[in-house]
């Protein structure tokens, strides 16, 4: 009580002093943003410490002692594309069983008990190119947490009962894959853009049933090696403490030589098609897609600007403005150019609108895409997009752990050394002509993939009028 009274009294004094200062320095309040002048932003890309263990483990560290927490990402440089072909769903089963299956030294139940007592977060994930374990622990528990993580990396048990549990859960997800319209649309789009390729395949009951514990163990033997391991660490730990700990846990793990996986070639995407998946919901989910570009592509900067103007820039984008803000036809309308690391990523656009306006909205999206092909973007649009992308760059570095993981991934995927340093100037150099050229290259209304899930009102053959073949199917008939 005493403390509170004191506080209030002092604040009052402080406030009136400031009021005096304000009156003295600023007679009138700016009314419009143009009246403001900003100091320059002092920012440099935060450094990340790098070192390597004798057996080839690459370690990235950013110390940050504000909170007594440490976060670790351990990445094996092999993922789903290195798994046996036809075992679609191997990725999910491997990651789940690695995470939950215990180790040779510590059975699964005991391991979970320890993690729970430490309130540690441990997660496993397998992407197309890499497999990750992520750990968050309190500073005091670092040695134990890191010990468990190292044990899982080196000596996972892949306990059979945990594989079966993961398999049953994945089978149930297959049974439920037509519950959510978004999920149906994404699945059909991947299949159309990457036909006959692991990137386009979704698990089936058969493919899930084919995965054995031996498959998991073989993948581990072939790819989990110190010279294929990358570790990113952030938080309240110093290198002087971390390095000996890692040496102790991982130092006697012998090198295994390169674990290179061949990348299966892509087939050309399927011919343009409009698929209507019938589902009894009041809104139609619309998704459009085509193949885009890889990180080697010099057009990636122009593509980022194009994406911002098309649908990546939220209310500053044409899709959001025309579909939502001008016409009230949707809550969200978006586009995305995923820059592929090894293969071209998808170019996508999507929205949801009531069934009665589905045809109108699809027409609008295609018209907006055609407009970007036919006319250069306006100087205002170009300015907003470039300034937003350049000025928001600083937010890529706001989360210390994201900074370390980003540095590690840039190295792993072989980005040029000056990628981050030159990013802003490359965005700033994009012209309206560049944007139009990239629109002509990536937006193809005449041959794109379109998926509509819902019960769109189609008065007659309206959907056919878009000039693409139309395939109609009910959700429950989908394979």
């Amino acid at each position, binding site marked *: 009580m005493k403390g509170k009274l004191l506080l209030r009294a002092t604040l009052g004094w402080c406030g009136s002093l400031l*009021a005096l200062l304000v009156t003295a320095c600023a007679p009138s309040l700016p009314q419009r943003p143009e009246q403001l002048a900003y100091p320059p932003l002092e920012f440099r890309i935060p450094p990340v410490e790098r070192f390597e263990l004798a057996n080839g483990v690459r370690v990235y560290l950013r110390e940050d002692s504000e909170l007594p927490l440490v976060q670790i990402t351990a990445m094996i440089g092999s993922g789903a594309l290195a798994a046996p072909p036809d075992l679609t769903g191997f990725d999910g089963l491997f990651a789940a069983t690695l995470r939950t299956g215990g180790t040779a030294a510590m059975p699964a139940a005991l391991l979970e008990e320890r993690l729970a007592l430490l309130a540690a977060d441990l997660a496993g994930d397998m992407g197309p190119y890499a497999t990750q374990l992520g750990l968050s622990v309190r500073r005091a528990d670092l040695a134990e947490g890191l010990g468990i993580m190292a044990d899982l990396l080196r000596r996972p048990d892949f306990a059979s009962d945990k594989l079966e549990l993961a398999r049953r859960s994945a089978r149930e997800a297959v049974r439920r894959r037509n519950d959510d319209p978004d999920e149906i649309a994404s699945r059909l789009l991947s299949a159309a853009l990457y036909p006959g390729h692991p990137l386009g395949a979704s698990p089936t009951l058969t493919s899930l049933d084919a995965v054995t514990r031996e498959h998991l163990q073989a993948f581990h033997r072939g790819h989990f090696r110190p010279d294929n391991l990358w570790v990113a660490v952030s938080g309240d730990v110093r290198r002087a403490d971390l390095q000996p700990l890692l040496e102790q846990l991982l130092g006697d793990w012998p090198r295994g030589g390169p674990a290179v996986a061949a990348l299966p070639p892509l087939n050309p995407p399927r011919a343009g098609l409009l698929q209507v998946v019938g589902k009894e919901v009041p809104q139609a989910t619309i998704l459009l897609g085509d193949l885009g570009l890889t990180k080697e592509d010099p057009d990636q900067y122009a593509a980022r600007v194009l994406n911002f103007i098309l649908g990546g820039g939220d209310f500053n984008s044409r899709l959001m403005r025309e579909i939502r803000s001008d016409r009230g036809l949707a809550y969200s309308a978006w586009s995305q150019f995923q820059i592929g690391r090894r293969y071209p990523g998808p170019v996508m656009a999507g929205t949801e609108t009531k069934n009665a306006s589905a045809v109108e909205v699809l027409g609008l999206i295609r018209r907006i895409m055609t407009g970007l092909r036919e006319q250069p973007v306006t100087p205002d649009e170009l300015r907003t997009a470039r300034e937003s992308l350049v000025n928001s760059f600083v937010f890529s570095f706001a989360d210390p752990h994201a900074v370390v993981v980003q540095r590690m991934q840039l190295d792993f995927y072989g980005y040029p050394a000056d990628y981050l340093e030159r990013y802003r100037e490359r965005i700033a150099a994009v012209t309206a002509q560049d944007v139009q050229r990239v629109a002509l290259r990536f937006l193809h209304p005449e041959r794109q993939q379109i998926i509509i899930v819902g019960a769109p009102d189609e008065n007659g053959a309206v959907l056919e009028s878009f000039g693409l073949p139309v395939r109609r199917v009910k959700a429950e008939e989908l394979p």
Partner: protein
Amino acid sequence: MLTRCLFLLTAVLLAPVLALATPLADKVVEHRLGNGLRLLMVERHDTPTVSAYITLGVGSVHESSETRGVAHLLEHMLFKGTTTLGTTDYRAEEPLLLEIEQVGSELDRLRLQPAADPVRVADLEARLKTLQEQHKAFVVKDAFAQLYSESGAVGFNAFTSKDMTTYLVSLPANKLELWALLESDRMKNAVLREFYTERDVVREERRRSYESNPDGLLYETLVSTAFTVHPYRNPIIGWHTDIANLTLAETRDFLRRYYAPVNTTIALVGDFRAAEAVALVERYFGGIAPGEPVPAVAAVEPEQAGEKRVAIEFDAEPQLAIAFHKPTLPDRDDYAFDLIDQVLGQGRTSRLYRRLVEKEQLATAVAVYGAPGSRYPNLFVIEAVPRHPHTSAEVEAAILDELERLKNEPVSATELTRARNRLLTDNLRALRSNSGLARMLTTYQVLAGDWRYLVDYETRIGELTAEDLRATAQRWFTSKNRTAVTLQRKGGAER
């Protein structure tokens, strides 16, 4: 700077020696403007960015039955600009806005009349459309979004909950004054333009979040079934007919009545100097009239007279949700429920996961959480996804059996320690990002009346015993206090 010292003093008085308390209590700087606006600040100089949260202690719970959905619709409308931003010339625009409102209100009235003249309706619709087209000449589209975006800001957004409404953005540190200018302008001079289009946007949002999505439908049904009297029963977004009939006058009234400094908490977290931020906020917000405090909700949910049970149909595989009424913070039972939530449903060592997912394999997932708000007595909710061929009934029986266990035997010492560790460590994790910390501060300031709820939390959690948890479970996990909702395909049969 003086304020900072005082907070150190406060910290010492509370003797917060444990995990969360220390990092937080000695970092928060608090300042109260003369008009009642509360400013909470944490300086962090690692990256030149600032996260700014403005939270108003008003939400859908403060609507009347005539204005369901208005808090959320207003939140949308406050992105449409002010008398100086978002318009080419407000003086010239204003008469047109008035005319649009007259035609729009007349149209809304007519549409509700069964005997309305269809020709008259069509005429008004055409007239409204023409006026809206004319109005476009005055609109500078989405001016806030453009200004923020060009400045490099990210995460410009807002959310409405049952209890409060928050406007948030993160900016490069050198643009903090832009935030002060735009947000104070929005508080003082908002213009609710493009209203009728935005009502349609909200109806699309409703279709997307609650009508085309089984999870949303299950949740909405659970909450609207569990409450009979308290406005927690109403969806934040409103029902379709609510949204379609909200008027500009009602929306404006809600704004004028509640959006005032006395109901406002601002949190700034990031790379700035607190003394300078105080001066900035004083300068831009200090001149706004204090306004009237939001009144407390009078409605009290009566004790439930017996189980409520609903089966809903949707084109999806089965799911279920079970809820029990419970008190809210700072009731001792609310802290006990935080621990029960952990023991029962969080993580791979929790009782429901072990039994339903791992051992009996009746379900593939179990989720436990509190809902739908926290300012008034609320619900403890358990959701589960049955694993084929097991039924919702089997899953529910196993869940209820586990609740009986909680009522009949005390939780183990290990379970209690685990639960406490998890709650405190997760609170610590929530402080890592600037926006996470800003969210925690404004949320608890508004919900608990003081952000120091977070500082005291560890002590409160530490005081509770296994016997307390058992008593809490016995008080609230009764069949009479239960609401159960199952979702399945048409016909009700589980395939």
